[in-house]
C-alpha cells in the first residue's frame, strides 16, 4: 500500500553517500536500495570524507568483509591493484571499477519516519520527520503546539 504521491520531504544527496548501507538496513519501506554505480566516479569524495571506512572495523550486515584474494571492498569502494591508482589515491589503496551506493527506489513509499537520516553518518539524507497521524496534527492545530497523540505518561489517554 502506498500513501499520497509527491508529498514526502525526503532529500537524498548521492554525492555524499559512501555506500555503508545503513539507510537500506533501517528503512521499513524499502525506499533505499544499494547499487553498483559505474557511471559517476567521484574520487575526492572518500579522501575528503571524515570517516573514509565506516565499516572497516564494523562491517554492516549488508556488506560482508572480503575474504583473502577477493577485491577489497571497503566503505563502498572497490579497490584494485594498478600502479596509477596507487599514485592517485595513496591513502585509500587503489580503486577499481565503480562505487557502491544507495539510490532511491521509490520516493512515494517514504513515510518520513527519519530512521535513514538519523543513521546516515555522512549527512546524505534529510527528511522532515513527524507523526503521520491525523489526531495528532488536529491536536497540534487546536492547541497551536507540536503535534502530539497525547500518549505520554498520562494513564488512560488515547494513543494513536
Amino acid at each position, binding site marked *: *500500500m502506498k500513501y499520497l504521491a509527491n*508529498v514526502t520531504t525526503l532529500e537524498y544527496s548521492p554525492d555524499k553517500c559512501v555506500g555503508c548501507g545503513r539507510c537500506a538496513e533501517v528503512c521499513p*519501506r*524499502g525506499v533505499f536500495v544499494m547499487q553498483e554505480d559505474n557511471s559517476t566516479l567521484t574520487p575526492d569524495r572518500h579522501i575528503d570524507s571524515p570517516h573514509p571506512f565506516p565499516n572497516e572495523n564494523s562491517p554492516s550486515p549488508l556488506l560482508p568483509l572480503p575474504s583473502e584474494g577477493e577485491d577489497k571492498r571497503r566503505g563502498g569502494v572497490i579497490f584494485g591493484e594498478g600502479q596509477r591508482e596507487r599514485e592517485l589515491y595513496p591513502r585509500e589503496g587503489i580503486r577499481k571499477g565503480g562505487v557502491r551506493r544507495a539510490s532511491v527506489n521509490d520516493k512515494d513509499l517514504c513515510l518520513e519516519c527519519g530512521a535513514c537520516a538519523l543513521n546516515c553518518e555522512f549527512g546524505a539524507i534529510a527528511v522532515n520527520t513527524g507523526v503521520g497521524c491525523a489526531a495528532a496534527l488536529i491536536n497540534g492545530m487546536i492547541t497551536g503546539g507540536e503535534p502530539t497523540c497525547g500518549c505520554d505518561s498520562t494513564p488512560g489517554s488515547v494513543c494513536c
Partner: protein
Amino acid sequence: MQKLKIVTKSQLDSGSSCCGPAQSTGAPSSRDVARNMLSCSDANRSAPRWITGTLPSPAGAVPQISTVWTRCDYWGMIKSRSGGYRMRYTVAPGLYAVGAPGNDSDVLVTANYKLTFDTVRRELTGLTAWVLVLDTKSINVWCAAGKGTFSTDELVKRITEARLDAVVKHRRVIVPQLGAVGVNAAEVMKRTGFRVSFGPVEARDIPEYIRAGYKKTKAMSTMKFTLLDRLVLTPMEINPAMKKFPWVAAGIFLIFGIQPTGLLFKEAWSNGLPFLLLGLLSVFTGALVTPALLPFVPFRSFAVKGWIMGALSVFIATQYIGSTEVQNPVLLAAAYLFFPALSSYIALQFTGATTFTGMSGVKKELKFGIPLYIGAVSLSLILMVVFKLREWSVL
C-alpha cells in the same frame, strides 16, 4: 469518623493505581488468593509469573524468562488492545535471560510494553539469548522510537547499567529495525563500543535472521500491514468514536423531536431512529470497514476512501430503511452530506495506526479535508432547518 476517612483514602489510592498490585495488609485470606489466581495479579508473588529463575552473570543475577504464554498473558493482550490498560501494561527495564546464555550469546534489545516483550520472548522459544529491555514507558518500539523514549540515550544507559561489557565478550547488540527511528547506531558505537545491528521488523523473524548470520531478507525488513494487523487496531478507533457518539445521537433526537409545541419524545424516537442507525453505520464504516478493506478501496487518500465507503453504506442502508423521513429528498440530501463526511473523518484518524502514512501526506489531507467537512456539516444543518421549517409549514 476518622477511621472511615482512612478507609476511603486507601480505597482511592488503590483506585488511582487501577489494576496495579493491591497493597495487602496481613495474611491473605483464601478468598484473596482465589481472586489473585483469577485476576492474574502478581501482587502476592515475589516475581512476575513469566520469570522462571535467575542466572548468575559477571554483572550479577539476571532473571530468566519463560518463552511460553500463560492464560494471563493472553488476557493482558486482550485488555491492552482494547483500551487504556495498555499504558500500565509494562515490565521492569533491564537485562533478562532466555535459556542459559553465555558471554558469546546474542543481545536482543526491546521495549518495556509487556505485549512487545511477550511477543519477543515467545519467538525466542528454543534459543538462548540476552534480552535488554529499554524503558519506553509501556509503549511499543515503533511509537516509542518516534516519541524519543526508545532512543540512543536510553540504549546507552541500559547497556551501561546492565554492565553488558562484563556480561558478554562480543560487542554487538541487535536492535529491532523499527527502533532505528530513535537509535543512532554510530553514536551508540561511539559511546559504548557496541555495534548496533538493526534486526528484522517483526519479532517472528528473529530466529531466521540469526540463523542466516544476521542477514535479513527484503520481506524481513519491510513493514507489512495485513488484514489481521489492521483489525486488531480497530477497537482503538471504534472506542473513542463511540465515546463522542452520544452527542450525535442527542443532536439527531433534538432535531426530530423539536416542535413548535415543545419537545416530542415519540416523534424524536420514531423519526430520529433511522438517522441514528445511519450514524452508527457511519462510525463503523469509518472505524472498522474502511480500515479492514483499506487496500481494496480506491484512491490513496484516507479521507476519500472513508467518504466512498460512507456514501456506499448510506446508499445501501437507505434502500432497506422504508421510513418516509429517510425518503424525504431534503433529509436524504442532508444524510448524504453528513454521514459520508463522518465516515471520512473517522477513516482519516486511522492514519495514526497505519505503517505507511507520513506527516506531509496527512497534512495535505487535512488542508483539503477540514474545510470540506465543515462545509458539509454546515450545509446538512441548513437542510435540516429547511426540513423543519417545511414541516411546520413556515416555508
